[in-house]
């Protein structure tokens, strides 16, 4: 059979994000796959060296458009660690709730992408609609639909507006009310099982070796979650579980995403109940003259796709000396994807890619 070279992306309906995979195919089977990132490279880490500490806040969230909030969080954490700023108690709770809302939104986006890729328009449209309801909450809280710039060093920008708590509860209840519909049409659909079961299977050993985190790792049975391993914000204040599955294939990964969404919603309810009163913001020094003492820090948090890390070096100036993001899509998209696509069929390229939750701007930065 003839060997063909097939470009999957960057202009492709099945491609979420500006990313490209070069496939060598024989018939329907893939002989070799090569991930080809860089379409979204803006040199963020270089640009941040040219901007002051506070100017970088609008920058960082634009690294990842699907879930900008965890990016804000990680940058705030790093700045707080380097500058030694304390965060008020209530701000920690607000941050946690905010990040969990972002996780729900991001997972719904992932569900849209995945269902759309399988040709499952109906569920995809529902998921996108529900994500929009979450975005409405963000809009009320922060004023922005996509980019929020809400988490700030020393807390968050402003407290919940009056009546926001009830709105969160109502919205999440209305989304939660549709979970049986989602289950009936998508998650328990026999065809979804047929399409996803055994596709893109990795063992726990392989996942560890290739540096996987997040769903990719949790779908192989390891409940590794930074929120548990190194709790930040208010994640150690309430009780919650890390959902896992054993098989390590696309089916388990998507199920883990579903379970995580539900767990996040429960966590938001619990956090809202025990949230203390108080200030949400500690003043930082004058941002125009703000210098952060010499030092380096590595901080990490759990974004919706896995471990998000930030290595930051300050040389005592008003600008960071070097920043480097460890993004979860990086090993997923550049190592695991290439390995899993070998010997897969063309019909499963998008299936594997989106179940690994590869977000292209995170890889390129």
């Amino acid at each position, binding site marked *: 059979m003839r060997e063909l070279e097939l470009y999957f992306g960057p202009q492709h309906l099945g491609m979420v994000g500006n990313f490209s995979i070069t496939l060598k195919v024989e018939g329907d089977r893939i002989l070799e796959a090569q991930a080809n*990132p*860089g379409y979204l490279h803006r040199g963020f880490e*270089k640009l941040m060296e040219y901007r002051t500490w506070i100017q970088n806040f609008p920058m960082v969230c634009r690294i990842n458009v699907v879930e900008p909030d965890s990016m804000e969080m990680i940058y705030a954490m790093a700045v707080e660690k380097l500058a030694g700023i304390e965060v008020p108690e209530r701000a920690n709770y607000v941050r946690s709730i905010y990040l969990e809302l972002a996780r729900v939104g991001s997972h719904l986006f992932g569900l849209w992408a995945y269902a759309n890729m399988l040709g499952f328009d109906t569920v995809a449209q529902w998921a996108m609609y529900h994500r929009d309801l979450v975005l409405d909450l963000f809009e009320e809280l922060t004023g922005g639909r996509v980019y929020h710039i809400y988490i700030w060093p020393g807390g968050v920008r402003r407290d919940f507006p009056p009546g926001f708590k009830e709105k969160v509860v109502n919205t999440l209840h209305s989304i939660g009310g549709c979970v049986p519909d989602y289950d009936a049409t998508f998650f328990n659909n026999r065809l979804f099982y047929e399409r996803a079961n055994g596709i893109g299977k990795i063992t726990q050993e392989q996942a*560890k070796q290739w*540096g996987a985190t997040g769903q990719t790792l949790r779908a192989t049975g390891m*409940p*590794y979650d930074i929120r548990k391993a190194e709790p930040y914000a208010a994640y150690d204040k309430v009780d919650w579980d890390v959902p896992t599955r054993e098989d390590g294939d696309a089916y388990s990964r998507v199920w883990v995403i579903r379970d995580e969404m539900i767990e996040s919603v429960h966590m938001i309810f619990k956090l809202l109940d025990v949230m203390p009163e108080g200030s949400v913001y500690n003043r930082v020094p004058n941002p125009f003259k703000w210098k952060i003492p010499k030092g380096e820090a590595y901080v990490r948090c759990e974004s919706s796709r896995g471990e998000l*890390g930030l290595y930051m070096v300050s040389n005592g100036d008003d600008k960071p000396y*070097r920043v480097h993001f460890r993004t979860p899509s990086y090993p997923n998209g550049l*190592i695991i994807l290439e390995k899993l696509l070998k010997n897969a069929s063309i019909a499963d390229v998008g299936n594997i890619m989106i179940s690994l939750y590869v977000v292209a701007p995170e890889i390129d930065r």
Partner: protein
Amino acid sequence: MNNSLRQKLEATFKDIQVSIPEDSKITITAESDSVPAILRFLKDAGFDHLALLSAVDWIEDDCFELCFILTSYMQNDDEVTGRQRLHIILKTRIPREKPQFKTVIGIFPNAEPYEREIHELFGINFEGHPRLTPLLLEREYEIPPFRKDFDTRKYVKDLFDNIPFVEIEEK
């Protein structure tokens, strides 16, 4: 645990400095030749997750600094232990002239794209790396763009601002 690890490290390797600036962090500074051995040792000691491989350009000291950040996965899949809260930053310096380093893919396979990226953005050559092909960039740059002496604002001014607008005559 931190201190026992520190003692073990200092007993095994000679020219390294180990410091524990805070509870969850160990910083190791080592010569570039002994880095693979230290990485192997730390991997066997349970730090089996290379979270990040980064480089810093210390232009005033005329050297690059490579940082390996290691954390650990859970061992027996049930409990989060103190080990997961710990991360190790292993630092080594290499000269800025003709920067060379031995690849660590043999120890941590997930270092491959990181090394590719650092090769592209800093111009550090990794010996033994199977494909040091361009990863992110499309144009060729005389100075790798992430080095401190590459001025992106000047570059933009010279290249993009000099491209003229397409004149459109009124009809």
